[in-house]
């Protein structure tokens, strides 16, 4: 056998040994026993906010939150297929209502934990004026929005543009860049690929300060962006789930955190 052939044999043997080691180790990693854990499915737009709030709840209650981020539609499908989530914080109110009606959501547990605000935003100063007149001028290349078919903020953006009588024209002129979700719309603008985008105020506001330029469309132009939470019927930790939602609804720290992230709270 030549030297290179021996080398490749050795390599193969070593890799096989490494593989065996990994497989053997994988059997050893039994999960350690922890305090009670709550599996929370949270809509992508609220994920960063909840990530910041979670340690406060964990400190106050002594339990742990396991956060799973995703789109509300995907969570709805997964919950129907038996996903082991205890609580869903959705990006809309339709899916929690639907889950409640189907008996998958605990009747009476649903409430609006946050109301989103739509904003037309550019990372650059002086691009968007405070009255949104820039939309009528047409002196821009493209606007980013989230897909109106499956993202609530996309639907809201469509409603605003329709109310202003601009929706058809902008579509005809191919001036709308449609992102799969609201984060993609934000990325279009943040990377300068579009001049401005309809995004969530929570994405561009940091402790009530907004960088760049923006316009807040009047709330009368779009259906309120209610985000509902619901406890899932299959949970085995109902008491903890209730404690968490009660905390999210009433604790001053939680409310301050939600507001600082750019959401409203239901009255």
């Amino acid at each position, binding site marked *: 056998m030549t030297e290179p052939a021996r080398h490749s044999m050795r390599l193969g043997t070593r890799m096989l040994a490494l*593989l065996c080691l990994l497989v053997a180790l994988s059997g050893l990693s039994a999960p350690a026993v922890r305090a009670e854990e709550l599996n929370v499915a949270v809509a992508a737009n609220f994920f960063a906010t909840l990530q910041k709030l979670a340690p406060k709840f964990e400190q106050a209650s002594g339990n742990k939150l*396991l956060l799973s981020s995703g789109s509300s539609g995907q969570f709805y*499908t997964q919950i*129907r*297929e*038996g996903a082991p989530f205890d609580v869903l914080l959705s990006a809309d109110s339709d899916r929690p209502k639907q889950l409640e009606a189907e008996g998958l959501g605990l009747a009476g547990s649903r409430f609006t934990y946050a109301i989103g605000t739509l904003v037309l935003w550019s990372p650059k100063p002086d691009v968007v004026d405070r009255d949104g007149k820039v939309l009528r001028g047409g002196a821009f290349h493209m606007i980013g929005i989230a897909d109106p078919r499956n993202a609530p903020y996309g639907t809201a953006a469509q409603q605003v543009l329709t109310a202003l009588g601009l929706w058809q024209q902008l579509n005809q002129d191919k001036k709308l860049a449609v992102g799969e979700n609201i984060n993609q719309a934000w990325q279009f603008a943040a990377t300068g690929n579009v001049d401005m985008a309809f995004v969530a105020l929570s994405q561009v506001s940091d402790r009530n300060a907004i960088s760049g330029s923006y316009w807040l469309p009047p709330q009368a132009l779009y259906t309120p962006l209610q985000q509902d939470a619901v406890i899932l019927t299959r949970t085995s930790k109902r008491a903890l789930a209730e404690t968490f939602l009660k905390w999210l609804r009433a604790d001053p720290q939680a409310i301050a955190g939600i507001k600082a992230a750019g959401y409203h709270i239901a009255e």
Partner: protein
Amino acid sequence: MIASFYSPDDLVALWISLKLAAVTVALLLLLCTPLAWWLATTRSRLRVLGEAMAALPLVLPPTVLGFYLLLFLGPYGWGGRLMHHLGLQPLSFSFGGLVIGSMLYSMPFVIQPLQAAFHAVGTRALEVAATLRARPWDRFFTVAVPLARRGFITGSVLAFAHTLGEFGVVLMLGGNIPGRTQTASIVIFNHVEALDYSGAQRLSITLLVACFILLLIVYSANRSRAEVAAVA
């Protein structure tokens, strides 16, 4: 030092990714070796059907694979009901479910190199072994397998790297649950969703380097093999 570079969640996710890739490759080698041997040696018309089915995961969008597996393994699907009859938990949203999904997803990457390698072994060496009274099992393990080792190396490393980078299937079937089904590629997705780009960078560069090294191994193994052929 490692602990300060990665967050605890990142480390757990990396561990789950490694574990998933290792278990997947080990099981795939067991499953695909006989399958690839059959595909490489059979004259049956069923071969074409087998080849098409084995290549299907290459062209299907991972979300389609994940969606069908979710329906199949969920409590109302056949797989889920079977598990229920056996008195077991359904496999969706568990590590076991991810292993099944990853095996399907990475299967072509093991079968195809193995099939090509077995094909290259040909019948001559095996016939010679047979004249020396080697029994079929003996011929397979002492002649065919060593001659096809390049296929085993290529298949294992490609499947390992492909499983590390898996996203759509894992997200759909696993549900993004920290410590259980949240792999490194999903944590990257979470970091991006939370606009935490430095967190995403750390894990992305890790996967990039890991996959590059694995591919280097494949190509250097193939190169030394080619040199052998040239010398001989």
